[in-house]
């Protein structure tokens, strides 16, 4: 997977974290759904992960101001989701999880309609609707009623309406639901393109780890309405680059002590297995050089990848952390 460069953020975004949760509690029908979420997410592309019923969609709805917090607060780019909801919504493009369209309208008219409601004058809305429709790859189908679209096309139409008015924050709730692999790939590429082409902030909710891994810099993992983990994927990826697993023959203490002399941290296991954490200043070729000097055969070398799946599974296994997380 391609590594993401550090996101470019404007001054306004630099001043405020993308999402800030303070002891956020949300109840629906008297039942607590989100239970005291506290956390700050600063990255420009945030993934929201969790098993079904973890509270992902409820959190999104709360950020959009659909559900008032029972306790605590949620802020997006410094705007309170409850008290500044109108200002916040003027920045947002939202792609809901479920079917959401006007079935008898043609695709492009539907997107134009939504853009006009977002505040675009009719002419600009029409132009942007066409652009958005062509951009998501539905140019040929834009004059067909949305009700006749396939599931994948409806997802793309929902994405088109979410981006047509040029939002600052794009909220995507399960965007790849019901899409076949090529369509999913195309949608993920589109999301990455949108991310890179502007200073847009992205919040993507999914139960598909791959979707999040491919599009996001930071991930918030929910479980039973609580934060199970907040993980910065960019840092995680950077750390993984310097973590080696070696299988060696003939390695003695002098090999590891020489590596430690270069600033590496080493852990020796049975059968010549060694784990090495390298500082930024050390390159892999220096490990090979030391091995050659000491007559050590390196039979296998792996960059250990702490994948999002590992992070997710760890978060799901952990319980009862003292800071209120699971």
């Amino acid at each position, binding site marked *: 997977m391609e590594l993401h460069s550090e996101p470019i953020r404007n001054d306004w975004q630099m001043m405020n974290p993308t999402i800030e949760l303070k002891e956020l509690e949300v109840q629906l029908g008297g039942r607590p759904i989100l239970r005291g979420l506290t956390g700050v997410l600063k990255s420009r592309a945030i993934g929201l992960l969790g098993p079904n019923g973890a509270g992902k969609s409820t959190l999104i709805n709360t950020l959009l101001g*659909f559900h008032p917090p029972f306790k605590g607060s949620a802020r997006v780019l410094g705007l309170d989701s409850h008290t500044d909801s109108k200002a916040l*919504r003027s920045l*947002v493009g*939202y792609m809901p999880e479920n079917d*959401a369209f006007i079935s008898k309208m043609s695709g492009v008219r539907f997107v134009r309609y939504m853009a*006009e409601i977002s505040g675009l*004058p009719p002419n600009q809305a029409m132009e942007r609707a066409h652009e958005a429709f*062509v951009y998501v790859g539905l140019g040929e189908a834009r004059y067909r009623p949305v009700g006749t679209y396939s599931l994948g096309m409806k997802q793309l139409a929902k994405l088109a309406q979410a981006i047509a008015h040029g939002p600052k924050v794009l909220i995507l709730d399960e965007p790849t639901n019901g899409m076949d692999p090529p369509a999913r790939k195309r949608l993920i590429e589109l999301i990455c393109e949108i991310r890179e*082409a502007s200073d847009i902030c992205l919040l993507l909710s999914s139960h598909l780890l791959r979707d999040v891994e491919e599009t996001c810099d930071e991930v918030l993992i929910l479980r039973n309405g609580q934060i199970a983990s907040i993980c910065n994927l960019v840092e995680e990826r950077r750390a993984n680059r310097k973590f080696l697993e070696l299988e060696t023959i003939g390695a003695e203490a002098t090999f590891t002590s020489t590596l430690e002399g270069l600033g590496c941290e080493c852990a020796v296991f049975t059968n010549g297995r060694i784990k090495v954490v390298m500082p930024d200043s050390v390159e892999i070729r220096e490990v090979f050089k030391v091995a050659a000097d000491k007559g050590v055969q390196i039979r296998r070398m792996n960059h250990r990848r702490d994948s999002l799946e590992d992070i997710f599974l760890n978060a799901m296994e952990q319980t009862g952390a003292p800071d209120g997380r699971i």
Partner: protein
Amino acid sequence: MAVYKRRYNPYSGSQSPEWSRFFVLTRYAFADLFKSRFFVILLILSFVPILFFAGYIFIANNKTVQLLLQMRSADLFTVETQYFIIIMIVQTQAAFLLNCWVGPVLIAGDLTNGALPLFLSRPFTRADYVLGKLAVLGLLLSAVTWIPCLLLFSLQSGLAKDGWIWAHLWMVVPIVLCSAIWILMLSLISMAVSAWVKLRIVATGVIFISFFIPAGIGEMFNSIMGTYWGRLLNFSYMFRLILAKGFRERSGLLGPSGWNEIPLPAAWGVLIFACLLSLVILNMRLRARESVRG
């Protein structure tokens, strides 16, 4: 940017004023309505009585035509208070039929297709949404009630002599006011029913029967209990009562004898209560997300 250049561009152009955005809903709703032939036919039919009323006013003010038609009685054609009450009753019934068709088209479709989160995730409140839809019904029903009624009033004023207009100018107030309460009540009830039922055809039926079933129950109540308070459930009756009082009409012209037994404040109270109840239902049903109790 040309549409063939596939690239995402942020928008940095002008924005429409926030206060005017509810009217986007109205504009699109009208455009969709006029695509329906049935609606256009219904709308045209609701204007047909106006032509007859206008013809009547013309004849009433034209002695030559009266002579040609061999009308001998001068009182046969009089355009006074009662005449405008009849116009109002006919046109408000036309408005009712139009409302039964149009009301559900406006809201039920959005709810069935789950489009509400799309509207409400924008800088657009539920009040804006209701206002936008209400404006459709308001404009449409105004076009078949008080606007043609005022045009007929103007026609009569123009044709009549001896300062007819000054003697009857007060009628403008009940024409507008009574139409306004009827339009508001019809619109809110139809929107509330559509929001509740969600299916357009069913909603049309429910709106229709919501005016007749309670009236029937009210009459049954009257028969059993030997009272007349059951008429409070008859919205049309309450409206006619307000209309008659507004036009200073005190005869039993508008319905069965005893029409004026219900006090006027009670009639107003019923219509206002119906409006408030509809608003409560709309508030409950028009939400971006439904939450299930349990």
